[in-house]
């Protein structure tokens, strides 16, 4: 969904290709088999740069960029960085350059065109020279004040458009005559463009090294890929107390905000939402994942908030049937852990949906509070927190 970080290797390959220049860079995939062969194929007489290539911020500070390495050192770096849990590395020819030659160029897609930001004072301290930054909107004609050769600038912009980039930052950029050297490049591509022809694919999108996704999150991703409806799930605190089963892209943020605003951010276990009128089975599967997370949490008091606005077209009766079916599967454990459920929802067939939910939750003794649109959307959070005794 939306803008995603593209690997530096792919971004530079596309940009150099458009510039008509050769790119001397190699990608190493720590999960693949042939990265050793790639390293062994490097020229023993040349010097290289090794970088972690997975959208990590502050790579220099974290020591994730190694400069001026020979072939042997590259092998050692690669082994160490893979052992540290990184998967993608980028190896490039190391080029000596004068810090005074470091320029900065970025392109961002805005409503009225592409915004170009340029400075001859690039490099790590570029933010200190913000007032020297030339900012202009590219309108198809030559961008006048930018010192990059017009033909090269056009080639970069063409690559930017053809590949559905949303943002590109080259810093430092070295320009010698008509030759550009992109020392560091960060690109964000529109992940919705994968259906259309671009020079990259899904495998080139990068996420920072983070915790492994939980089985529940993976299950929700799979569900989302297969369904017309939308589903998302992100575990925030596996041992949290407040579990959210929310519907609607906007309403879900409102409810999560309320948890944060009331000061219960630490207790918040997850964020996620379903929307777009999922069917019974899909809602059941989604709820299963939340229930599974909830049961694993070691928190002493746990609540489940089933929240959502007044839906336009998502059928409350059908989706709640799915929710109830999933809760039924785990009801013994949920009751044993004295989990209380708090509900606020509206929309098509809300009467039937809420009545079924109330009937079920009261019958098994899990009812915290069940309300329709008469209760303010965000107020369900306070009621749940009060019941859970959260502070």
């Amino acid at each position, binding site marked *: 969904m939306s803008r995603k970080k593209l690997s530096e290797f792919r971004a530079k390959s596309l940009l150099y290709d458009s510039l008509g220049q050769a790119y001397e860079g190699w990608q190493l995939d720590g999960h693949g088999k042939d990265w050793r062969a790639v390293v062994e194929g490097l020229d023993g007489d040349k010097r290289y740069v090794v970088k972690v290539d997975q959208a990590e911020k502050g790579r220099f500070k974290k020591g994730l960029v190694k400069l001026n390495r020979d072939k042997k050192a590259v092998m050692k770096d690669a082994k160490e960085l893979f052992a540290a849990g990184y998967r993608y590395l980028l190896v490039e020819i190391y080029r000596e350059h004068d810090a005074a030659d470091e320029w900065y160029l970025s392109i961002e897609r805005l409503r009225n065109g592409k915004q170009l930001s340029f400075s001859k004072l690039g490099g790590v301290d570029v933010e200190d020279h913000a007032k020297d930054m030339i900012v202009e909107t590219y309108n198809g004609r030559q961008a006048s004040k930018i010192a990059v050769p017009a033909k090269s600038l056009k080639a970069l912009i063409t690559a930017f458009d053809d590949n559905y980039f949303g943002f590109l930052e080259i810093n430092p950029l070295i320009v010698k005559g008509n030759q550009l050297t992109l020392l560091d490049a960060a690109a964000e591509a529109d992940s919705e463009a994968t259906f259309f022809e671009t020079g990259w694919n899904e495998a080139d999108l990068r996420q920072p090294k983070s915790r492994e996704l939980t089985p529940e999150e993976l299950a929700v991703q799979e569900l989302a890929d297969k369904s017309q409806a939308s589903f998302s799930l992100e575990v925030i605190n596996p041992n949290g107390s407040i579990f959210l089963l929310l519907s609607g892209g906007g309403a879900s943020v409102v409810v999560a905000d309320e948890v944060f605003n009331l000061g219960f951010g630490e207790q918040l276990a997850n964020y996620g939402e379903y929307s777009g009128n999922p069917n019974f089975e899909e809602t059941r599967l989604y709820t299963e994942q939340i229930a599974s997370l909830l049961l694993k949490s070691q928190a002493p008091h746990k609540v489940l908030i089933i929240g959502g606005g007044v839906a336009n*077209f998502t059928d409350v009766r059908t989706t709640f049937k799915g929710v109830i079916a999933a809760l039924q599967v785990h009801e013994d454990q949920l009751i044993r852990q004295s989990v209380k459920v708090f509900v606020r929802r509206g929309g098509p067939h809300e009467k039937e949906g809420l009545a079924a939910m109330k009937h079920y939750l009261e019958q098994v003794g899990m009812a915290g509070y069940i309300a329709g649109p008469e209760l303010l959307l965000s107020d369900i959070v306070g009621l749940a927190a009060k019941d859970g005794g959260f502070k």
Partner: protein
Amino acid sequence: MSKIDIKALRALEPAVLSVGSHPATLQAILDFDFLNGRREPSVKAIVASGRKHERYFFGTREVVIPVYESLKRVPAKQKQAINLFVNLVSGRRVLNTTSELIAKLPKLAGGVIFAERLPERHALALYDQAKQHDTWIAGGASVGLVIPGSLKLGAIGGVEASQFTASNLFTAGQVAVVSSSGGMVNEIIRVVADSGWGVSFALAVGGERFPIVSPRDAMLAAEADPQTKAIAYFGELGGTDEYEIAELLKTKRLTKPIVAYIAGTVAELFETPPQFGHAKAMAGSSKESASAKRQLLNEAGAKVGASFADFVNYIKELELMTIDKNSQDTDQLSHRQKGLISSSLSYDVDGEVQILGRDLLDLAENHSFAFIVMSMLLGKQEVSKETEAFADFVLRLLVDHGPYVSGAMNSIVTARAGRDLVSSLSAGLLTIGPRFGGAINEAAGTWLKGVSQNIKPADLVEDFASRKRYISGIGHRKYRSDFPDPRVKKIIGLTEGLKDRKFTDFARAVEAETLQKKGNLILNVDGAIAAGLLDTLSQTEGYSLEELADLVDTEFFNALFVLSRSVGFMAHFFDQRRIDEGIFRLGDDHVTKL
């Protein structure tokens, strides 16, 4: 800038085209139209594949909405009238379909794109096109626009009539609701209804990074709308749309009171926040965070709630006049049942059979059999004299071709086996197909293709030859160029009075080519009937090439043969019964052993 003129939309007689179909949404629009006292559904046509009509209720009455497989197939007259659209297709098809609407619908005021996951570049391309054509587009990821009492474009406001009552969507109120979230727009509509102020209009601009109608455009629409006295805005973290709103407030281009909530303060919990529900809900910089935008709007003069509850209170504290809660009888809509089949052909009215709106007895008294046949087969109340005359002759001409042909043979064999009238007739009819009797329709398809695609007759003949196929409508066992078929001459003579005979001309030109190959490759009765019927329908009934193609698809051109030859089959049955030779059996020497 694509401006939405809410006041003009209130006065507009909406004519909506739906691209893609979402029956619950379209039914809700029709219910809204009906309950607001419209005489006709606002949805006029659907562009989708798979069928030609969809059935809906308008009130308790069933109506059909025509479905076309592409915008091209929508009749020109209808295209002229369409002034709004809802685009319900998936994100990857949005750009192409919407560009076409903008270019081909001259009266288009605006429309809504429902799909999310529209690539940014496509959204911006549509933004430019909309600007050029002076139209507006809400979306992507918009649940639509609703103007209480006037217009509902999309699922916004609900899909159940009881939701319209709860949100008081029958009376124009005073608060404009603008939201990036489709779910929250409905939530806030309900809050505004409950506060008593009522909604002047509500618009979901959609949660994409580049909503084509921007929040700024929506604010200007609210400012310009005399009915709107205040604005309730729901925004989210991510993007810089709120900076444009702040600018409007600072420069006094936006003067109406605005209350708002910017969702997403929860993002502060994370070092790297997750992607929240909507595409744009990811703050690229601190400038795009929820709290930065809240502060910005507050400083510019809006009242932005620190919590959602504050926001709701700000709505309730607006100083406006309360409006009446106008309820409609929505119960009448809850027990509707669709008919099992639909028919546009014939039905009982007060016990009398009506055919295409005309009393059957009246038809029988005043019209020929051929007139009634063509009227019913085409589904047209009136057919031209030329059509009637042509059909009349063809019905007579095709009545029989002797006992030798396959169909008659089967009727005869069945009759001699002692079966009844209908069985013998059916045995004959079941023989009709690609090799027997079905050639008229195939020939019609060939002539139509040649004329529509401007194919040179020589090329067409070459194409058939290279595929080793016969051309239906060409060739005869007995007749030759020097021994012409008198029936063909007569059929061609029937359409002599028409101004334009492009199909007959084409068929003759093809014949001229085939005759160079062999003397018996002449235009035959099937080919001549096909050409004559095409010319007659095109010239005297106003059929377009597309409509003629539909007739070919439904095998219409074989119908006259089936009908006429049924007489022959039945006649052979009676003839055999009169002769009564007993069961037919082939002798040993009639069967070759292989």
